[in-house]
């Protein structure tokens, strides 16, 4: 049961406030903001309590999305609801940021009114909501340099903002009524998140790939879509491995609405996509990769005579030559106060950031098969053999467009009934690093 929902900016401005049950005063917003800003780094922020009142909140798009409740409710439901709410608002407003929420407050109030009544979640399906929602979204320019509000507080969010594969799908689902839009498009995205730990000896210590097939649909009506996956797609460890490039995942789950009658035979998913974004399938591969991990690092760390730490990093990209990585960033933890550097190409840059105490090495473009190197000289006061232990681990963050590390591909995408000319189908692949750690 939900007492209130409110959305705050990271600075504590009230963007949206809606009270559903009249049990709690409006000062709850202030109480919440005081509590959340008073937390120290290690305290879990998700659930906070003040007397009889409980706050459950998530952070998305640099905003606090808060639910208050008085009774003991299911945390899974509340967190999932908030996540769903953010997707809904993103669908309707085009993007998720302080600016878009400010501009579309009327639309958001309207949505909240239909989604929750008397504190009970009524529906979050765009199929039903489209009959009720009347306000049209106001969109701003797709991106402005000054709009930094979507930079998150926690590291995870900055990663999050990179997830959005491109700006093409960042427009409101309702604008199709407007004059400029009218394009009935459908996007099918295969998004994979890698979390990898590579030991100091180069051995792969941990690999997890979490993948999703997301459908973002702008079509007002679509009866059925058939998504064909690789025919040699297999689930589970026990299955016999044939020759050739089998695509294997350990676990796999589907959205409620997916019909699987052709899945066992032909690996075809049947969905009737509703407007907006939905996760159709989720899968997980752990402990092994079909191909080599995309990046290898060969670090050498030495002390020179002048009491400096020499860090020679050689980074190799093991992707097929045509693939290129978009703006990978390497960061190495160290406590050194100053740095001098020699990089292999002038368009790269490296800096020492005080707040994370790490050297960040940004590489604008990294084609497959290439090898880059960098030499960092770090001044470490009181250099000892123990200081070597403090260097590392190396973290890589990257985004690989048009690449899936499980090898999952979409063979075809068919819509029935076949729509007249205007419908466009897009399939996009992206792999990004959830956490790619290389120990030194």
């Amino acid at each position, binding site marked *: 049961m939900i007492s209130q929902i409110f959305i705050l900016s990271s600075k504590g*401005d009230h963007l*949206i406030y809606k*009270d559903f049950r009249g049990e709690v005063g409006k000062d709850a917003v202030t109480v919440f903001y005081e509590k959340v800003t008073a937390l*120290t*780094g*290690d305290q*879990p*922020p*998700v*659930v*906070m309590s003040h007397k009889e009142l*409980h706050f459950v909140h998530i*952070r998305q798009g640099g905003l606090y999305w808060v639910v208050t409740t008085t009774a*003991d*409710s*299911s*945390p*899974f*439901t509340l*967190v999932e*609801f908030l996540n769903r709410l953010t997707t809904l608002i993103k669908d309707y407003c085009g993007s998720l940021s302080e600016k878009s929420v400010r501009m579309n*407050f*009327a639309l958001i*109030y*309207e949505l909240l*009114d239909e989604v929750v*009544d*008397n504190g*009970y979640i*009524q*529906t979050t399906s765009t199929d039903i909501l489209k*009959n009720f929602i*009347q*306000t049209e979204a106001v969109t701003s320019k797709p991106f402005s340099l000054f709009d930094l509000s979507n930079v998150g507080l*926690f*590291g995870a969010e*900055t*990663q*999050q903002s990179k997830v959005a594969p491109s700006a093409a799908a960042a427009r409101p689902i309702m604008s199709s009524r407007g004059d400029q839009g009218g394009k009935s498009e459908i996007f099918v995205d295969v998004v994979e998140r890698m*979390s990898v*730990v590579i*030991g100091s000896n180069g051995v792969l*210590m941990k690999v997890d790939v*979490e993948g999703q097939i997301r459908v973002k649909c702008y079509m007002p009506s679509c009866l059925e879509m058939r998504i064909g996956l690789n025919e040699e797609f297999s689930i589970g460890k026990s299955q016999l491995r044939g020759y050739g490039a089998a695509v294997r995942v350990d*676990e796999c*789950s589907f959205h*409620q609405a997916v019909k699987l009658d052709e899945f066992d035979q032909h690996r075809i998913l049947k969905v009737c996509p509703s407007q907006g974004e939905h996760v159709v399938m989720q899968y*997980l591969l*752990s*402990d092994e990769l079909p191909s080599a991990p995309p990046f290898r690092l060969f670090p050498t760390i030495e002390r020179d005579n002048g009491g400096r730490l020499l860090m020679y990093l050689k980074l190799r990209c093991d992707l097929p030559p045509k693939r290129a990585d978009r703006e990978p960033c390497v960061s190495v933890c160290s406590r050194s106060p100053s740095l001098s550097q020699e990089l292999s190409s002038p368009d790269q840059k490296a800096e020492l950031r005080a707040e994370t*105490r790490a050297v960040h090495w940004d590489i604008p473009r990294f084609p497959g098969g290439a090898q880059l190197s960098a030499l960092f000289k770090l001044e470490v006061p009181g250099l000892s053999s*123990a*200081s070597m*232990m403090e260097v*590392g681990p190396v*973290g890589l*963050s990257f985004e690989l467009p048009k690449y899936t590390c499980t090898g999952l591909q979409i063979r075809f995408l068919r819509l029935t009934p076949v729509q007249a000319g205007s419908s466009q189908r897009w399939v996009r692949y992206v792999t990004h690093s959830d*956490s790619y*750690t290389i*120990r030194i």
Partner: protein
Amino acid sequence: MPYLGGEETVKELRRALSNPHVQGDPLRHRSTVLRVIRVMSQGVDVAGLFSEMVKACATTDVVQKKLVYVFLCSYASLNPELSLLVINTLRKDCQDPNPMVRSLALRNMTNLRLPSLVEYVQQPLTAGLRDRAACVRRVAVLGWAKLHSLQPHADIDAAVVNELYSMLRDNDPVVMVNCLRALEEILKEEGGVAVNKAIAHHLLNRLKECDVWGQCEVLGVLQRYRPHSEEELFDILSLLDPYLLSPSVPVMAATLGLFLSLCCRGLPAVSLAALRRAQAPLLAACGSASPEMKFTALCHVQLLLRSLPGLMGEHYKRFFCGYAEPAYIKQRKMQVLVELVNDDNVGFVLDELKGYCTDVSPDTAQAAISAIGRIGRSYSDQCLEILTGLLGLKQEHITSVVVQTMRDLVWVCPQCSESVCEALEGCEDTLQDSQGRQALLWLLGVHGDRVSSAPYVLEAFVEQVRSEMAAGVKTELLTATMRVFLCRPAETQDTLGRLLHYCIEEEADMNVRDQALLYYRLLHCGIEETRSVLQGRRSDPSLGVLIGRPAEPVSQWARSFNTLEPLRQCNAGAESAPQAAPYHLALDPEPSLDLCDPLNPSQDRQETAAESVNLLLPGPSAGPLAPGPTAGPPAPGSGGGQLGLSLSPALSPQQFEHLWLGGPQCPHGEPGAREEEEEEECVCVQERMGVSPALQCSPPPQLQAALQRSHIQTMAFTPPHTLPWRVYLYTHTRWGGPAPRGPTLVLGELLYTGGAEDQEGEGEGGERGLRVTAKQRPRDDEAMKGFLQVLSGALHTSSTGSC
């Protein structure tokens, strides 16, 4: 936060709203209303515009209507009279042919929350229940719940309740679920909806039609249902089984909650099976992209592990921390990792944790170090190696946490003390914070005899005591210096004198001064008295068990599953700061000894000391029947009551040697037989024990821990695999029960000569045995018998355990 110039804005908006030109132009009218809502959500008080907004409500533009309703619902309670004006428009809208307008009007009518309007609302609500459109029925059903909460004491018409019950069979699943919700609220005092068999089965059958949120709600209500037969129960469970693997986490959690509430009383095996089945989706949720969902899932994994320890042992890699994860998730993952450690993965887990110890966030680094300390209770050698290595970094915050962790580790694993004492050398220079220094002082005090530099480190501390701010450090310094003084008087006497002088004469903190005075008086009572007060146990191995912990029954936590409680508990846990610290305070017996002792004569003191130790440390050997640190079988003979062994007062090696050599000598060469030789009040006994020779191969720490559990302190060992193998040990006996007798001191030697003695053919047919020589003073035969029984019991368990 009110904006400056809010009044100006309100005035301007009022002018615009009452402007007939604006009212005539729908688009301009709408945009003005929009502006009102915008300033309202920015926090400006726009209550003054109420009457203008009421007029704006009468429009055909649905968007504008919705906006005005947002305004009205926020301010209606401030203007109950004016709100009456709206009700007419709303009632008219309830007749509108468009179902959307009808539902909108009905919803906002009930959202105004004005008790004075109730009479006008009831009729449209009744009509709404029978509306053709499902969206109106959904609103109407919940409308009754809102009405009830407006007037909690007024009885709702029984006809309405009946109608709501009958609407559980409505075609629309949302209406059905809303009926459940409304009835739950209206009938709250009667305990909510009466879930009988018919309703339960109806709900179960329609579960499929509901969306995710509805399913959660229905599963929650079903928790109250009690099936009539086991057959019915299993039918329900098998129907629900697919929902356990639902891709939607809330549904999975609600289903698991229902499983637990249905089975945890009668069928614990079924609920455990359900937990195992739900493991996969829960693990998937732990890897969710949303950190909040991850956190929620992790907290619930911890709950599961209470009943199924080591459940996800083979999936330990899933709990490795990501590079950019927020600190609170990392900490929770480490807590889970500690629980999952087993022989196979300990190396990998420690390797991973070691990587986190140098994390840039000090919180994460601390959590990682404490996690290693926890694992150290079971795998001490590997963990100590890592911890010692970390000291080499000479980082302030790392050293502090490592020393605290070592203190906690030594308390539960006495076998670590040797290596900890070695590692301590030199780390006092790096320590800055008071927590870390307290831990160091405690270690120096308790193990001062093994750290060669201890008196000099303390001296350095004493020299800077004037600039010391933390009272905790000063008290710890006092105790530590006293303890080191007891074992190394020559080196410490001067330091102690200066410290006591400072604390008594100059110290401003009352606690510190009082404690110094207390120690001062104690020293006046004599060195033996002081020793018996200050030198208590150095460890309590019984607390160290991490693996093989008994599993809790599911019913212990089933109630809090899928509630906010597990997530909140974490909050409380985090507030009490460093993970390991709190229990340490509770376990350290010293403070209570220091406070209660000086006034009692020595005999009583020993009793209280022993008892307070026991109160604080209910070890496994001190069962509820045997108060005091007793162990082993009840005393033989009738006169005794309970025989207890106790470790305090502690003996120093020198004292032991003195007593051992000065005591009665046993005639050698006649083992096997029991020989006694009286000399004043002392007695010496020799006996053979048929203990397997494997004992001799067992590593000293293990035997030491085993004996300590029986309250026998080992003094010295020969290294394993050497012949002859000797162990020296001592204990104090104490009679509990109705017939108290004086305590006695028992010194013992275990001697194993291996094959050499077999050839002599003496003893019981050449049996490989262990010769026990025990000396007691004053003499008490029954106590001696009891001691020998306890000892042989302890040796047997430890020798069988070690192989």
